């Protein structure tokens, strides 16, 4: 390790933290200290301790492929991601991220060695303070993830899976992981509240479970099978209701249910399902807060570098370089632009944060009408921190997307019904459209509304133990057939008995189609 003694700002006339593009560890320390002063002292951020790691581009590719985590169990799908990313990078289709940051305590962030010093300053402010603050304070993260325990847990998961591979063969483990990965989007708790998870404890509990579970089967199966006499219909219905209660059906977390109730899985297989489920759950908050998270980090870096410049601590050249990559990142191409790839979370996020600041300090009449609570309160720091802590993308947009921004982005709402030869514009940036556009955009950020809604509704105990899944069809949008059939086959592999997937129209309750194994 090449740690150098911390030095204060350089002696002499210049207050500049650095000059030119080259960086070394002393410069990083010095710049970090200056950034921290603003982040904590001025913005009032509250962060986990930082662990800052400098890596090479190969490491960055590595980090991408194990979903950004410093350690992860092995699976071919990560290798697939690796070869693809590498190819893209090699051909220059895609640059690498300047930085990757992990929701853990201490908060680990990786920085590329190729970054110039101005860029290092930018990403330090962005990741080590912006993202870090968001991870620590946002309620979704607080509620669903355990930053203290995640690294230990992944370490445990990695070891555990290696052990399983030794004991049961690489192939068996791979098959199981394939199946579990296919269901991982359905392996999270979306609606139910759950106590703050403690991953460290999970690790210990696993050992206890191993010995206990060895003999333990769910009571459920002991009374089976039993046929139903014609006169017992009513009793059967009662039994169904009682069973639903006992199994807490319907259940949205497919992996959880299968892990707890599958009649065929062995203990180690249940443990692996739990690992996949825990990892999926760990990432679920990130999916729900893309716009806010990036918005918060971008706002923080933008504020900090400008402040550094105002204080004469970075040069004009450095600021220009920073702003150059800043504006690349927050570019929002129009829908008919070649480069358009959806709403850019950096662009919208930053714009919304800056807009909140504007509403707090320089409100217009319109703002007073829309945001009486915060307009002109002058305290944008507290307002923003409060927003960062208590919302997720969906509610944040619902609450804070102002008419002014809708106009600025020229947002419009289009809907399209398959079979029609045209799409319809349902709202634009005008008086009548604001609400429509805002609601629709908020809805499109609600992961549980965007991803297919699939739940376990019944297990046919009277007969063949068939697991019944129900897809609630919204707006007549069915599941893509081929992937659906493959996933159902995987679900069957895990469950051990037949699995049936029924599609039911959400609003009318009408059954649409049914597939089974």
């Amino acid at each position, binding site marked *: 390790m090449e740690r150098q003694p911390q030095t204060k700002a350089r002696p002499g006339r210049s207050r500049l933290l650095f000059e030119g593009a080259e960086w070394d560890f002393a410069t990083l320390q010095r710049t970090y200290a200056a950034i921290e002063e603003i982040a904590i002292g001025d913005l009032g951020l509250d962060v986990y301790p930082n662990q*800052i790691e400098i890596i090479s581009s190969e490491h960055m590719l590595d980090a991408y492929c194990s979903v950004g985590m410093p350690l992860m169990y092995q699976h071919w799908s990560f290798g697939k991601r690796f070869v693809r990313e590498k190819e893209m990078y090699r051909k220059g289709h895609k640059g690498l991220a300047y930085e990757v940051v992990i929701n853990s305590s201490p908060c680990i962030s990786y920085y590329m060695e190729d970054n110039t010093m101005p860029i290092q300053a930018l990403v330090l402010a962005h990741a080590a303070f912006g993202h870090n603050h968001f991870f620590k304070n946002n309620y979704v993260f607080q509620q669903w993830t355990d930053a203290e325990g995640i690294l230990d847990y992944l370490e445990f998961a990695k070891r555990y899976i290696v052990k399983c591979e030794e004991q049961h063969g690489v192939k068996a483990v791979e098959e199981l992981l394939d199946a579990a990965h296919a269901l991982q989007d359905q392996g999270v708790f979306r609606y139910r509240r759950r106590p703050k998870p403690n991953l460290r404890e999970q690790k210990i509990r696993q050992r206890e479970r191993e010995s206990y579970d060895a003999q333990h089967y769910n009571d459920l199966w002991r009374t089976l099978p039993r046929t139903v006499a014609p006169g017992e219909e009513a009793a059967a219905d009662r039994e169904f209701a009682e069973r639903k209660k006992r199994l807490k059906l319907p259940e949205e977390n497919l992996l959880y249910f299968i892990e707890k109730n599958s009649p065929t899985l062995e203990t180690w297989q249940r443990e692996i399902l739990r690992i996949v489920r825990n990892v999926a759950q760990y990432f679920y908050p990130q999916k729900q807060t893309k716009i806010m998270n990036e918005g918060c980090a971008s706002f923080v870096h933008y504020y900090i570098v400008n402040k550094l410049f105002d204080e004469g601590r970075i040069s004009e050249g450095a600021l220009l370089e920073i702003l150059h990559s800043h504006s690349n990142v927050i570019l929002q191409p129009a829908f008919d632009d070649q480069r*358009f790839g959806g709403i850019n979370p950096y662009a919208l996020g930053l714009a919304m944060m800056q807009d909140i600041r504007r509403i707090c300090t320089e409100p217009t009449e319109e703002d007073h009408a829309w945001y009486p609570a915060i307009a002109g309160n002058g305290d944008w720091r507290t307002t923003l921190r409060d927003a960062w802590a208590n919302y997720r993308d969906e509610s944040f947009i619902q609450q804070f997307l102002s008419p002014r921004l809708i106009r600025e982005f020229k947002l419009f709402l289009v809907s399209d019904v398959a079979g029609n030869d045209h799409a319809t*514009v349902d709202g634009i940036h005008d008086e009548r459209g604001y609400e429509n556009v805002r609601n629709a955009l908020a809805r499109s950020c609600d992961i549980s509304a965007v991803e*297919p809604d699939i739940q376990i509704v019944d297990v046919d105990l009277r007969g063949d133990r068939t697991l019944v899944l129900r897809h609630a069809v919204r*707006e007549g949008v069915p599941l893509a057939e081929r992937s659906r059939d493959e996933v159902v086959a995987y679900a069957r592999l895990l469950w051990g008995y037949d699995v049936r997937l029924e599609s039911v129209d959400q609003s009318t309750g009408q059954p649409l189609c049914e597939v089974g194994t």
Partner: protein
Amino acid sequence: MTAGTPHLIDRRLNPRDRSLGNRQRFLRRARAQIKEAIHKAVNDRNLADVGSGGKISIPSRGVQEPRFRHDRSAGRHSGVLPGNRTFISGDRIAKPDSAGGAGGGKEASDRGDGEDEFVFALSRDEFLDIFFDDLELPNLVKASLKEAYAYKPLRAGFTNHGVATNLNVLRTMRNSIGRRVAFRRPGLAKVGEVREELAELAQRDDLSALERRRLAELWAELEAMNHRRRVVPYIDPLDIRYNRFEPQPKPKTKAVMFCLMDVSGSMGPREKDLAKRFFVLLHLFLQRRYDRVDIVFIRHTHVAQEVDEQTFFFAQETGGTVVSTALAEMQKIVRARYPVSDWNIYAAQASDGDDFADDAGRCAEMLDAELLPICQYFAYVEILDPREFELFKDSHNGKDLWRTYQGLQQKWRSFSMKHVADPAHIYPVFRELFAKQNAKA
């Protein structure tokens, strides 16, 4: 709580292949498809490029990770888009095609079930590994073919770290002596003297005061000496020197490889594919041994012609079959462009074994008298279909060329021939070539 000083860690020198395990898992998973892709790549690429690894594409089907996804081609979809210029509420936007998504952008192509090609790059090693799989090469040969450059370790001075086997005793001891002298480490002889005197004095019990003082001095001296010997070691890690070796590229020369092939109608795509693998293998071998490898393609029907690679493998030609014309052409080219003194000459001939009447005899004569004396190696494969292969299993039997060439095999060690109906049959043709190579290495 504030963050305090950050924990800065330099990980740039950490091992870089953390994803290697995953990558190998992926390659294993997709092996069947990759194999097919490589097969195709070998056919499409230039002979000289086969060994360079590189990009391949496989259908993404087998390596897909299915998830429940919405079908974008059915039902009602809506979305918020930026950058409206002309639309107002209630406008209708014509869709680019009837199956499309919402009003332009990328969404239209984002169907639920995509079937894309998955493109990625294989390293040279990975590529060759799978290429060799079919050819059933022995492992030793595989390893030596994959090695891109041959190095020979050459002595290059001394170094102060290395492995025990490279320890240079002379240097080490020279350093050790110098240091011991400089630090005045008492030698064993010196200690012995003191000990002896001590023992002598200690034995006696009628010591004078002078002698008693001498005894005390000796004890002190011995103690000091022992201490000094402990503090100044006989051999210090500082003294140790190892021989240093530097890998030096082996001197290489140039080689020319002649590919001779019968392209009359009886050589179909399957035969040509096998022939190509045969040529590729020889080329890989030569590439490894020589700095520069030229390839000359000569095809023949009843006349022979030097052609480029494309024409060689893909053009169709009709006519009779007179093999000797190709040999004559090769002879002509050698004379004109590849003087034997400067070039190592290798030749590989592929044919289905048919030859015009008594031409086979002439071929054998030419080889025997003119070509084999100047060739390092001449390999002949007779490409048969599997049924014929069963028939000619006994190597004494064969078609016209085969029977005539048989005499040569006895006489020339540099001549090798084989029936081939399957990629796995190719390697034995070169067995001797590789055996020699490995014996040398």
